[in-house]
């Protein structure tokens, strides 16, 4: 029961000189990066239409008309792409008692003092907030986005509804960009994180340090590759290098 | 129009009844808004529907269609009873004081002399009592029981406000309010203008509708004055020109008349056209009839028309009956017509009872249509599903379509409602194979003449002798025709007092019809247009809009018939002594020795006041409240119901329609009655379109794309017809499907205690053009015309209506 909420069935620990832990499948990574690309493109194209000083960004899309035309379509792709992420990850992002503790000790998090923090599953409360925040904001963005997508949906809303849709869309977009900044910075801040979304695995030490409960659950749940089954997904040296960086 | 469009700005009160000027004449209507904005003029609209005109009116009163005469006779009754009469005008300038001969009478809706079988009157009793000197006897006190005024008073007495309201459906308070507003214009310095159009003419008593208002205008002293008059708003840019040029089956140009069979000789013809004055020293201008007629004959046949052959009188057709369009199509329907040349006309949508029109056209051997546009008439044989459901294979009529030009592709003149002949220049070349009408007719004529020359034929004389002296006989130009219409001297004209003094050299254009002669020395195509293209040049092309004293006369802008007179009967703008009734709106005045002013006087400039009456086209010189034998249906107007009416005639319950209207047996059998068809329908134009033309223009089509009928909210509720849904409307003669436009602008009326619902039907749709396919009201309308002009009764007939789920699908 609890395992279901701590680990993904595809997560696996690889025993060896350096322990590595599979964190994201190839599909999940592709899904993530597609979503990420969409979000970045949406942010750029959206900002071009949000503030006059940023209108120059529309040049990246071949001008204002193209920016206006392509932005909602990217949004649709993002919506479905993120939908995939949502289906993959929602269970693991359910709120757990330790998340409350973690949040209360957020200051320790910020000053890199993890000793005071509880052991965490696959995601910490910050990641969960990013996840649920993104989910909610994308829902708001897609609904308000459809309301202001004149090309196809102008007849379905009143002008007054469009006005509220526009301001909500803008506010949600600003918020999601802020959330995105947190998300990206966190990955930069916590070393060893990028490899999860690039190669798909983290080092055992990373898992031990940041998501010990997850690691323990994998080990106790026999999600362990002792080298007798398929070969390790990557040369042993690489994760080590990443971890040593 | 007695006045002109521009003169309407001078009025104090415009009454739009029998028309919808804002809708059908938006450009002319600007002069009403000018009068309102600058003079504080008021506008009354009396109409079955709350129209676009009503939208800008100061007062609107509803009326059931076809009851205008009851309304107006009631108005005369009210004016007389309330002393709202311009007495000096009535006594001096109308025939109110003249005695009518004994034996004349009126009872139960009929005058003396009625023949029920012939549906016609012996009009011999409808005449004045003449003295031994041949002049009419008059009673200046207006008290003699047989004077016109007394007879009129007696005639209108029964039209009380209560009865008027029962007949017309106009609430009594609204009728009385209109009476009061109109009554104010009996003051000599207040004028009312009457603006009407086909809302009055398209009735079986159309002429009398107009006449009744003309009588009111005489009683108010509003004829011949600025801001007054009887102003017919003509429905086409040149329909005034059509009647002026005599394009009626019984007319010659300039309102000369074609002879009847009963007038086999010129002498006999002229014997009834002497127009001897009925008052001492009166000018009776029709006394010049012979000059006009002979000059016309000379323009027709040139040197071949001589004194010896009575100016070729024998070459004119002699009518047995008038061949108006209703008769022509009835003959066609009976299979008695071989060919029909249809020039600039779309009878399949314009003539009543379309089913009968289709049947009639199907019996022709050939049909020629000359039109700039594709017309339904030229495609009458083509199946267009429910919109023209004919069996093409069974129609053997051979159709020739000759494409002609639109106004902007041609030079020429258009005569507007105000009798202004306005020259226009071609702005564009005709598309494709289209040719100007003059080219088409020139080609036809020279070919036909060649055939007659080669083969002789039964009666070649009028054709082979026709004067056709155009530079290119195959292609007469507009200038040549205009000059011919104006007229010229065929020989040197000399001063009657001094035979050596040449007043007009041979070959010169005549300056006006005053120069026309009855001795064959002048030719003139249309005497009333004489002066339009003189030695001074093309007067119709003048474009100087100078208007001294802001009178609205614009005497240097184009040219107006007759002799550039802008307001007819303008002598009546001044009192008997010659002083203007209203010094702020002077038109003409007597300056001790002559008449002067802003307009061309219609009496001789030196005719002393008090001698020559202003109405010089009448033998008596006065305006006629009682008309002698000229109207077929009565010397006074009478209220007659339309032939299809929802209630019986309250003043003469036994009479159906106008008793003097001619009705063919087939058409009589096609009349419906109220039990089967409980609603009264009327037809009309919309601003967005012009007849059946603009449905070919994309922009017009986009602004009014689809056929609809207008139904009041009450009837729609009763019949469960939601706005924008589809309905079927049908009469005894046909059925149409339309979108229902449910409106507050049509409210039910209470007539003789019964609720009457009106259904409105605009007329712009057919089965060809840019608009959606639709129907015309003529699919439903009855075949009966005005007793005098045979204008069809398009404004009042009976229908039924029901909701349908949608239009019949096109197979």
């Amino acid at each position, binding site marked *: 029961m609890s395992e279901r909420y701590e680990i993904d069935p595809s997560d696996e620990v690889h025993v060896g000189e350096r322990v590595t832990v599979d964190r994201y499948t190839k599909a999940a990574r592709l899904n993530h990066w597609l979503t990420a690309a969409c979000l970045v493109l949406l942010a750029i194209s959206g900002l071009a239409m949000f503030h006059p000083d940023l209108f120059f960004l529309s040049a990246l899309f071949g001008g*204002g008309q193209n920016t206006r035309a392509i932005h909602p379509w990217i949004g649709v792709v993002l919506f479905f792409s993120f939908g995939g992420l949502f289906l993959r990850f929602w269970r693991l992002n359910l709120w757990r008692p330790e998340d409350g503790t973690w949040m209360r000790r957020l200051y320790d998090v910020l000053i890199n003092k993890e000793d005071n923090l509880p052991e965490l599953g696959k995601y910490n409360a910050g990641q969960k907030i990013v996840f649920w925040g993104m989910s909610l904001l994308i829902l708001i963005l897609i609904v308000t986005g459809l309301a202001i997508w004149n090309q196809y949906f*102008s007849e379905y809303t009143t002008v007054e509804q469009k006005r509220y849709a526009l301001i909500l869309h803008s506010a949600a977009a600003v918020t999601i960009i802020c959330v995105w900044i947190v998300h990206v910075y966190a990955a930069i801040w916590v070393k060893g994180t990028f490899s999860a979304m690039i190669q798909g695995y983290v080092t*055992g030490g990373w898992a031990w340090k940041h998501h010990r409960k997850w690691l323990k659950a994998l080990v106790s749940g026999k999600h362990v590759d002792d080298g007798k089954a398929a070969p390790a997904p990557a040369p042993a040296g690489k994760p080590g290098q990443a971890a040593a960086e | 129009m007695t006045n002109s469009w521009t003169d309407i700005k001078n009025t104090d009160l415009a009454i739009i009844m029998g028309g919808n000027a804002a809708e059908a004449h938006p450009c002319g209507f600007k002069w009403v808004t000018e009068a309102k904005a600058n003079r504080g003029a008021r506008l009354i609209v009396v109409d079955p529907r709350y129209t676009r005109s009503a939208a800008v009116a100061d007062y609107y009163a509803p009326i059931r269609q076809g009851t205008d005469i009851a309304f107006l006779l009631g108005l005369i009754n009210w004016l007389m009873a309330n002393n709202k009469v311009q007495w000096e005008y009535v006594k001096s300038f109308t025939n109110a004081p003249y005695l009518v001969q004994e034996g004349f009478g009126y009872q139960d809706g009929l005058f003396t002399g009625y023949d029920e079988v012939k549906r016609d009157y012996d009009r011999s009793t409808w005449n004045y009592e003449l003295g031994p000197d041949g002049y009419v006897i008059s009673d200046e006190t207006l008290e003699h029981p047989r004077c016109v005024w007394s007879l009129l008073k007696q005639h209108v007495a029964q039209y009380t406000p209560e009865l008027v309201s029962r007949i017309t459906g106009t609430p009594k308070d609204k009728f009385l309010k209109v009476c009061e507003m109109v009554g104010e214009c009996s003051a000599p310095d207040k004028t009312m203008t009457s603006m009407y159009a086909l809302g009055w003419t398209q009735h079986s008593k159309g002429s009398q509708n107009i006449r009744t208002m003309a009588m009111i205008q005489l009683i108010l002293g509003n004829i011949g004055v600025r801001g007054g008059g009887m102003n017919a708003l003509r429905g086409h840019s040149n329909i005034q020109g059509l009647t002026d040029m005599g394009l009626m089956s019984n007319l010659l140009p300039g309102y000369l008349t074609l002879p009847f069979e009963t007038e086999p000789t010129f002498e006999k013809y002229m014997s009834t056209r002497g127009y001897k004055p009925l008052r001492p020293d009166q000018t009776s201008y029709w006394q010049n009839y012979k000059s006009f007629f002979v000059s016309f004959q000379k323009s027709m046949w040139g040197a071949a028309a001589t004194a010896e052959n009575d100016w070729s009188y024998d070459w004119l057709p002699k009518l047995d009956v008038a061949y108006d369009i209703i008769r022509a199509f009835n003959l066609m329907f009976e299979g008695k017509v071989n060919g029909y040349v249809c020039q600039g006309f779309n009878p399949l949508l314009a003539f009543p009872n379309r089913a009968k029109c289709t049947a009639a056209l199907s019996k022709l051997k050939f049909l020629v249509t000359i039109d700039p546009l594709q017309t339904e008439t030229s495609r009458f044989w083509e199946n267009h599903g429910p919109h023209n459901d004919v069996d093409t294979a069974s129609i053997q009529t051979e159709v020739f379509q000759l494409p002609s030009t639109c106004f902007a592709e041609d030079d020429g003149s258009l005569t507007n409602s105000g009798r202004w002949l306005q020259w226009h220049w071609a702005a564009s070349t005709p598309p494709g194979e289209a040719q100007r009408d003059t080219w088409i007719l020139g080609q036809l004529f020279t070919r036909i003449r060649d055939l007659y020359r080669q083969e002789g034929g039964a009666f070649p004389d009028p054709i082979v002798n026709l004067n056709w002296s155009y530079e290119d006989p195959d292609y007469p130009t507009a200038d040549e025709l205009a000059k011919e219409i104006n007229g010229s001297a065929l020989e040197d004209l000399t001063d009657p007092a001094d035979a050596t003094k040449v007043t007009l050299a041979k070959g010169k254009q005549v300056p006006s019809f005053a120069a026309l002669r009855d001795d064959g020395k002048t030719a003139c195509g249309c005497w009333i247009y004489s002066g339009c293209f003189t030695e001074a040049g093309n007067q119709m092309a003048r474009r100087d809009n100078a208007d001294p004293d802001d009178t609205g006369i614009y005497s240097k802008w184009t040219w107006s018939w007759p002799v550039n007179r802008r307001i007819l009967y303008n002598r009546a703008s001044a009192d008997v002594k010659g002083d203007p009734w209203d010094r702020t709106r002077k038109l003409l005045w007597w300056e001790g020795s002559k008449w002067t002013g802003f307009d061309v006087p219609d009496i001789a400039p030196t005719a002393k006041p008090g001698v020559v009456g202003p109405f010089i086209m009448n033998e008596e010189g006065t305006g006629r409240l009682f008309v002698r034998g000229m109207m077929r249906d009565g010397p006074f107007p009478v209220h007659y119901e339309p032939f299809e009416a929802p209630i019986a005639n309250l003043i003469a319950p036994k009479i159906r329609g106008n008793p003097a209207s001619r009705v063919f047996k087939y058409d009589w059998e096609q009349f419906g009655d109220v039990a089967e068809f409980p609603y009264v329908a009327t037809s009309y134009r919309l*601003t967005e379109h012009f007849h059946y033309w603009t449905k070919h223009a994309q922009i017009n089509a986009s602004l009014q794309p689809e056929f609809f009928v207008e139904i009041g909210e009450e009837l729609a509720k009763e019949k469960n017809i939601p706005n924008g*849904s589809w309905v079927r409307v049908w009469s005894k003669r046909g059925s149409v499907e339309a979108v229902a436009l449910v409106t507050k602008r049509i409210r039910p009326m209470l007539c003789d205690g019964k609720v009457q619902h009106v259904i409105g039907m605009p007329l712009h749709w057919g089965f060809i053009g840019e608009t959606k396919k639709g129907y015309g009201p003529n699919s439903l309308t009855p075949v009966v015309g005005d007793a005098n002009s045979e204008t069809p009764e398009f404004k009042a007939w009976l229908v039924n209506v029901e909701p349908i789920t949608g239009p019949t699908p096109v197979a």
Partner: protein
Amino acid sequence: MTTFEYELPNPQTEDVKTVFGQQDLIRRSASTIEPPARQLTPMAKLIDVSKCIGCKACQAACLEWNDKRAPVGENVGTYTIPPDLSPQMFTLMRFTEWINPETDNLEWLIRKDGCMHCADPGCLKACPAPGAIVQYSNGIVDFDHERCIGCGYCVAGCPFNIPRISKTDHRAYKCTLCSDRMAIGQGPACAKSCPTHAIVFGTKAEMTEHAETRIKDLKSRGYQNAGLYDPPGVGGTHVMYVLQHADKPEIYADLPNNPVISPVVNLWKGAAKYAGLAAMAGMVAFGVLHRFVEGPNRVTPKDEEEAKQLTEDPRS
């Protein structure tokens, strides 16, 4: 020679210099511009609803002049055709059948709808594309279709619901006050075509003065509440109405009573614009600051060892 008041000139046949242009802009969407060197006389179109007969000549003239064609549609039970403004139809006669509760008389109110050319234009405020919407010092608010991106923000910005976005070329369209005609000394095509002079054009001062005479006339006809519609909420407009019932503009097919740029739009295009940028910048700044103060969070060899031990723990 009699001329009507405010008669518009006939077209010239010779070349003429334009009387105003880019140098006369006082506002330009999504841009800041220098105030112009000169101030043009403010112009205005006055639509006298009481003189309008609903003939649609203005609509036809508008289509002709702008070389647009509205599709041949259907009749849906109204004279208001097309049923709405469109990228082709910049002006529209809106017909309302109104029963005056005071007199129980029907009044057929016909209002020519179209861009009001607000002094404070909501469309321009909302527009994100630099120069796509401009305002000249004579009052014209014009769309530059070359610069329009088709986002539809102008629709949301407009308090009168006027601009329409083309589904084919994805650009916003509305009445230009015939800026191209005005630039060569002519008036708007609708005013030129209006047969009853219900639409007149001149300086705003003249039009206001003319409206006074019209209001006086209407009051003499019993319209006690006749008045001029020049709503101050949008700084006044360069298209004004004379209304018989100026106290109830909403009876004229929902003409807004006291229109203003929506507070939502003001917030969106005002505070939100800056707050949004500030928030995003704030987040970045926080990250940078944190990075410098706290540095990265690194996994230690001890952690790796712990993990190894865990995986090798026989109990697991």
